[in-house]
């Protein structure tokens, strides 16, 4: 299906059909979820041999398993005999996975290890080596984040992430201890197309003061980079909308502390930032160490991974048809944080971005209604717009990407849809353009 007419990046237009059309969705499963590197699990979630974690790649059920040698493998969670689901637990530790249907059992490395009545019923003629679990074509890790990719022809994970690593590292590599995801997975069903929450978090600072006005009023101490309740004011100097990085985005404030402004009692977090700031500066350079580390940042890795240093939540969206997703959220911590800070972060999800989070609970119905309003005979032919601050972006000294000023701009969303269109139009990776706009000249530029 040709999606050339469905997105117009130059005007910020999207056809609403992209949120409801079944054919568009089938093509997304192939060309977006079947092709891109997708987040599978954090290394902290499967620390020991035989630890496993169950997730999805698009609509495909996948198990991620830590191997004896410490490496990680991922398999389609489906029996090679008659297709039954192999693993029904969310996570755990297992020496083997045994299918419920006829009892085939698979080793943690995917090998078919046991077949009931192998000699009696198969007459010893079953070639077990042909019936191991089907591996995900590529699995790779970037600083604790394990990704999988169904496309053997995809670029390496490092190349896929490209210059977005400049922003990723603000979270993943500021301190030597690395990061972890903590807590069980917070799962909820949202009746939304998967792209709407991604566009919301990748760039939509505009909705904060309005959609979340009730929560912002209740939690009076919260002031997010100059955005105020009721959208009565916005300070565009305090932040950046960063895109033009192969579909990855960052939306960041620049004060080095605002991430922790959402915590009711931020002192221990601010003390932690102050104590570790010199190390962060040494590792990340002055620009990132002073201005980004500790700031509220929304990071998006195309297509469906988003995490927010500061608010400290980490999220993937699993599509379930064009009109539904499962939204999975965890709390995330830096391993160098004192235990008290980690516990506060995990606990704060109850209040902000968990299942009953005061902020999270404002978004679902808006996204669902945007989806619903794309399903009608007439509405499916209509358009929606991300045309705020069109043409007002460019390079910014010290930061890679094509950058618009402020957290309120629809700059990032336009790049998200541009990337989506590029993938949807390409029949293979060789037709997908690569762009890391305004790269930093050198390592020295990073440290400037």
């Amino acid at each position, binding site marked *: 299906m040709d999606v050339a007419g469905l997105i117009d990046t130059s005007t910020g237009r999207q056809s609403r059909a992209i949120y409801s059309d079944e054919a568009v969705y089938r093509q997304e499963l192939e060309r977006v979820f079947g092709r891109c590197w997708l987040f599978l699990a954090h290394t*902290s979630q499967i620390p*020991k041999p035989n*630890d496993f974690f169950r997730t999805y790649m698009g609509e495909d059920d996948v198990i991620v398993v830590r191997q004896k040698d410490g490496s990680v493998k991922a398999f389609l969670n489906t029996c090679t005999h008659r297709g039954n689901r192999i693993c*029904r*637990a*969310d*996570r*755990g*530790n*297992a020496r083997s996975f045994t299918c419920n249907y006829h009892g085939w059992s698979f080793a943690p490395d995917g090998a078919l290890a046991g077949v009931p009545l192998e000699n009696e019923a198969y007459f010893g003629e079953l070639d077990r080596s042909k019936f191991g679990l089907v591996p995900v074509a590529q699995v790779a890790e970037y600083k604790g984040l394990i990704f999988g990719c169904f496309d053997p022809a995809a670029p390496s994970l490092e190349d896929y992430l490209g210059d977005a690593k400049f922003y990723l590292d603000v979270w993943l590599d500021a301190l030597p201890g690395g990061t*972890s995801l*903590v*807590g*069980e*997975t*917070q*799962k*909820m*069903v*949202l*009746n939304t197309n998967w792209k709407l929450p991604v566009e919301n978090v990748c760039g939509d600072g505009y909705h904060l003061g309005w*959609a979340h*006005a*009730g*929560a912002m*009023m*209740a*939690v009076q101490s919260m002031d997010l980079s100059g955005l105020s309740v009721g959208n009565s004011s916005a300070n565009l100097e305090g932040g950046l909308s960063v895109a033009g990085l192969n579909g990855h985005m960052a939306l960041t404030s620049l004060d080095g502390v605002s991430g922790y402004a959402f915590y009711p009692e931020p002192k221990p977090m601010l003390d932690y930032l102050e104590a570790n700031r010199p190390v962060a500066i040494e590792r990340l350079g002055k620009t990132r160490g002073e201005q980004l580390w500790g700031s509220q940042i929304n990071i998006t890795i195309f297509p469906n991974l988003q995490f927010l240093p500061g608010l400290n939540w980490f999220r993937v969206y699993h599509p379930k048809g064009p009109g539904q997703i*499962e939204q999975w959220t965890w*709390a995330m*911590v830096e391993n160098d944080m004192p*235990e008290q800070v*980690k*516990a506060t972060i*995990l*606990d704060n*999800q*109850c*209040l902000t971005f*968990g*299942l*009953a989070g*005061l902020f*999270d*609970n*404002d*978004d*679902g*119905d*808006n*996204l*669902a*209604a945007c989806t*619903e309003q794309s399903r009608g005979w007439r509405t499916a032919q209509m358009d929606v717009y991300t045309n705020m601050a069109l043409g007002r972006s460019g390079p910014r000294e010290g930061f890679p990407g094509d950058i618009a000023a402020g957290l309120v701009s629809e700059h990032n969303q336009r790049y998200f849809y541009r990337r989506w269109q590029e993938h949807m139009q390409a029949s293979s990776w060789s037709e997908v353009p690569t762009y890391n706009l305004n790269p930093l000249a050198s390592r020295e530029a990073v440290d400037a």
Partner: protein
Amino acid sequence: MLDLRQEPALHDAVTALTQRLYHEARLLDEERFEDWLELLCEDVSYHMALKSRRFRADRSAPIAVGAGNVFNDNFARLKLRIDRLRSGFVWAEDPPNFVRRVVSNVEVLPADKPDEALVHSVVVIHRNRIDGQTRLLTAGRTDRWRKGGESWFLAAREIALDHAVLPDSNVNVFF
């Protein structure tokens, strides 16, 4: 002296606490949140843990830092949730959803403190939402209610949510 190990006291407590749970459910259905707060002890704890589906035989180590919670609230935090709901800016609740609680399976047992009772119950929350769809949320509750004067007040509630994936887009309700 209240002694729930004795027949007449227990019988009276069962009646009073069952009525208390029904009353509480009606206050919440009618969004009489301030009246609901009056039923809570000042040191109330209101808790719902996050869970995952695990094999019965699974012996993997507990998650460092903890499993996390949906609610881990004290009085002030519950009040904060109510302040938000009362702000007039919670668009998901305006027009109001049709919310009705069914409380059942009430069991009253003596607690370790003489002026408290342990109360098990089940709550089913019916929400007919703005999109016209109905969601049902089911949870088991283990409460501690404390006797104060002639009334009972909620000192602690442990809520076991019976959904691996929350079948709704928010939890703007109390259990």
